[in-house]
C-alpha cells in the first residue's frame, strides 16, 4: 500500500474517531450533576430561580439536549469551538493563551524523559545484574511508584524553601518586567522543577521499557551471530540491539506525545503553571462546558495525529514494517 493511500485512509478514520469522541464527551459532561448557571449563581452568594433561568437561556442550556448537541457538532465540523460566557472569550483564544506554557512544559519533559530514559535503560541493560543496573532499576522504580504531587511538593520544600535555589510556583517572576534573554532565563528558571517532576516519571517508564526490551533482544540468535563474527561490543549494542529494542519505546513515546497538548493537570496545578491541564480542570470544576469540550477535542485530535506520526516513525526506524491501514 503506498504512503498517500495509507495517509488518506488514516485521516478519514481519524475524523470519524474524532466525531465519535466529541459525541461521547458531550454526553459524559452532561451526565455530571450541576450546570454553569447553578455554579455562577452559587458563586454570587445569592440567587433566585428567575435569575438562574435567565442565565440558562443566555447560555442556550434551556434548549433540548439534542439540539444543543447538533449546534456543538456543527461548530466542531467548522472548527469553531464556541464561546465561553463564563469567561467572556472564545474557546479557541482561551486555549491558544495556554498553549505556549503547556508546550514548553510537556515538550521539555518529553525530551528529557526520552533521552534520559533511553540512555539509562541501555546502560542498565549493558550492565545487567551489576550495581549500576541495580541502582538505575531501583531509582526508576521509585520515581515510577511515587505519586507525582508528592514529588512536586517535596521538591518545592527542598529546592525552594530550604535551599532557596529555584522558584516554587509560576511561569515567570511576576512584576519583574523582564524582556528578551533575561525573560527567557527567568522562564527557564521557573521551568526546572515542573519539567523535572513531570519528566522523571516518564524517564522511569522509558528506562524500564528500554532495559527490558534490550535484554530480550540481547538473547536473540542474530545478536549471537553478530558477536560470533566479531562485531565490537559498542557497535553491537548500538546497531544490533538498541535499534531493534527501540520500537516499544517509540510506541510509548507516541502515546506520551499525544498528551503533550493535553497538559499535565497535577504538575500544572501544584506548580501554578498556566497550562491547558489547569484550564481543563478548572473548567470541569465550574462546568464550563464549551471550554471543557474544546480542550477535549483539541487533545483528542492531537492523539490521533501523533498516533499517525508514530506509525510513520516505525517505518523510518524499522524499514521492515509495512504500511497497513
Amino acid at each position: 500500500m503506498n504512503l498517500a493511500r495509507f495517509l488518506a485512509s488514516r485521516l478519514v478514520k481519524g475524523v470519524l474517531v474524532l466525531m465519535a469522541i466529541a459525541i461521547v464527551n458531550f454526553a459524559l459532561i452532561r451526565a455530571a450533576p450541576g450546570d454553569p448557571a447553578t455554579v455562577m449563581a452559587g458563586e454570587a452568594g445569592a440567587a433566585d430561580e428567575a435569575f438562574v433561568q435567565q442565565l440558562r437561556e443566555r447560555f442556550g442550556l434551556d434548549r433540548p439536549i439534542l439540539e444543543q448537541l447538533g449546534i456543538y457538532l456543527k461548530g466542531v465540523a467548522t472548527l469553531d469551538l464556541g464561546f465561553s460566557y463564563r469567561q467572556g472569550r472564545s474557546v479557541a483564544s482561551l486555549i491558544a493563551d495556554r498553549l505556549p506554557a503547556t508546550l514548553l512544559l510537556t515538550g521539555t519533559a518529553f525530551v528529557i524523559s526520552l533521552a534520559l530514559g533511553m540512555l539509562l535503560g541501555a546502560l542498565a541493560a549493558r550492565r545487567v545484574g551489576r550495581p549500576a543496573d541495580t541502582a538505575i532499576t531501583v531509582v526508576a522504580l521509585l520515581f515510577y511508584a511515587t505519586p507525582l504531587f508528592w514529588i512536586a511538593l517535596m521538591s518545592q520544600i527542598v529546592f525552594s524553601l530550604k535551599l532557596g535555589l529555584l522558584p516554587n510556583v509560576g511561569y515567570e517572576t511576576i512584576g519583574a518586567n523582564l524582556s528578551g534573554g533575561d525573560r527567557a532565563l527567568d522562564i527557564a528558571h521557573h521551568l526546572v522543577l515542573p519539567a523535572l517532576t513531570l519528566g522523571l516519571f516518564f524517564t522511569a517508564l522509558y528506562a524500564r521499557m528500554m532495559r527490558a526490551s534490550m535484554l530480550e533482544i540481547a538473547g536473540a540468535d542474530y545478536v549471537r551471530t553478530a558477536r560470533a563474527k566479531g562485531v565490537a561490543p559498542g557497535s553491537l549494542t548500538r546497531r544490533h540491539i538498541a535499534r531493534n529494542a527501540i520500537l516499544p519505546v517509540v510506541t510509548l513515546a507516541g502515546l506520551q506525545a499525544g498528551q503533550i497538548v493535553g497538559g499535565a493537570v497535577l504538575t500544572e496545578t501544584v506548580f501554578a503553571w498556566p497550562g491547558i491541564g489547569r484550564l481543563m480542570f478548572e473548567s470541569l470544576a465550574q462546568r464550563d462546558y464549551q471550554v471543557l469540550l474544546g480542550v477535549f477535542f483539541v487533545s483528542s485530535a492531537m492523539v490521533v495525529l501523533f498516533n499517525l506520526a508514530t506509525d510513520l516513525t516505525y517505518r523510518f526506524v524499522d524499514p521492515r514494517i509495512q504500511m497497513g491501514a
Partner: protein
Amino acid sequence: MSRFVRIGIVGGLTLMLAGAAAAQTTAPQGGGTPKKGGALQLVVTPEPPGLMLGLTQNGPTQMIASNIYESLLRYDVKLNPMPSLAKSWEISPDQTVYTFKLQDGVTWHDGKPFGADDVVFSLDVFLREVHPRWRQIANNQVKSIEKLDDLTVRITTKQPFGPFMLSQEAASAPIIPKHIYAGTDYRANPANNTPIGTGPMKFAEWRKGSFVKLVRNEAYWDKGRPLLDEMYFQFIPDAASRAVAYETGKVDVLTGGSVEVFDVARLAKLPNTCVTNGGWEMFAPHAWITPNVKNGILGNKQFRQAMMYAIDRDFGRDVIWSGYGKVPTGPISSKTKFYSDQGVTKYTYDPAKAKELVKASGYKGETIRFLSLPYGETWQRWAEAIKQNFDDVGIKMEIVSTDVPGWTQKVSNFDFDLTFNFLYQYGDPAIGVARSYVTSNIVKGNPFGNVGQYSNPEVDKLFAEAAVAPTEKRQDLYTKVQQITADDLPLLWLLEMDFPTVSRCNVKDLVTTSIGVNDSAKNVWKQ
C-alpha cells in the same frame, strides 16, 4: 469582648485577635506616615471567571475588581457608612427617601466623566437585571431611582427598609459606566475583558492562569490616593504551594481562605508576619449544618436538639479550625447588628443528654446521609469529626462526597439529609439571615434559599415585620426570632467563621473597613 485568642507575638507587637471585637485587630496594621509607591503581591483563589463586578460577584472577582469599580458607599468596621462615590447623603425622617450627593471631578478610566446618569443606569437598569442580590432589593423594596441633577441621585423605597443603607457595598451595588454598557448585550460585551471603572487602580493586564495586574489611576478623584503603584493578584491553585509561595517571599498577602487554617497557625509564627481576623464584619460568615426537616426523623425537634448536644462544637473550633472563630448561639452572628443571646437555649457538648434525646425522639437507627461541602480539606475533616460525635450517641451517619456544582445542584433540589453550609450575613439579618428560615424562600433551584424547608409562621411574621420596622423596634423582634429558632433548631449553627488574612507586617492599612481585603486598597501602603 469576652474572649481573646492570642495568635503570636511579632516584633514585640502583640496581636490580639478576637472574634467578638475584630475591630480591634486592625489597629496594629496601621501606624507611621503613609508612603507612596511600591507593588503589592497578593494571592487570591480560585482564579475568577471575570473582573466585571456587575456581572460576577464571587470572592476572587471582588477582591480584585473592588479596586477598579466603586459603589456609592463604603463601611467602617462598625458597619457605619462612609463616603465613596457618594460624597454625602440625606435620609428622610420616614426612612423612605435617600438623596445621594456624588463626588465631583470623577472620571472613568477611559477619561469620560462620571455622573448621576451612570448611577441611575447601574442601579435601575443594569444591576436590576443581572445582579442576583441587588435585583431582589430593587424589585421588592425600591419605588424609584431618579437623577435630580448631574451630581444628585434620589432613591425612594416603598416602605422603610432597615438594611437599605448597608446595600451599597462595592460588590453589592457596583457603579458601572453607562456609555459602555447601555443598549449592549451585557454578558457578551467585549469591554468585560478590559474593565473600566472609577476606582483607585486601573486594569492593566490579565495573564490567564498566572496573574492580574492593576496600576495606579493617576486621575483618581480622592487626591493623594492610591498609595501603591501596582498590584499583582496571583493565582496558585494548590493550597500547600500557596503557603510555600508566601514563605519564599513570592507574595506579600494571603487573603482570607487562601490557605488552610492549620497553615495559618503555622505561618503566623514566621518573622515579619501579621495575621488579622478583621475585615469580615460585613459578611460575618456563619457556618452550620442544614437538616432537611422533610426527611423522616430530621423533622423531629428532639432529634435535632440531640444532634446539637452531640456535636462537640468547641473541638471543631479549637482543633479543626485551629482556634479561629466563635461558637454561635443562634442564627445571627455576634459580629453584626441585632445579635442577642438573651433567653436563648444554649447547647453545650453533652453526649449523655444527646443519647436521652435520641431515645425520646424515636430514632430507629436509620442511616443519615451527610452531604460534605467540597471547599477544601478542613471541611472534610470537620465532617469526619461530626460523624464520630454522632457515632458516640448512636446516630448512624454516612458521608456523601461531591464537587462544587454537584453540591449546588443537590442542595438546590433538597436532595440531602444533612449538609454543611456557610453564608454571608451582609450586615443585616433582613438580607443575610432571614433568607435561610422563611417559608417564602422554600424554592427549588436556589442553593441560598431555605433548603432545609423549615417553616414556622411565627418566625415568618417576625422576620417580615423586622425588615420594615423602624430601627428602634427591630432589636426586640430579632431577639424573639433568636429565642424561637434556638429552641426549634431549623439549622445547627456551628461556627462564626474567621477568614484570617496573613500578610507581611510592612504592608500597612491593609484592613481598614468592614470588608477588608474585599474592599479597594486605596489606603494600603508598603513601609
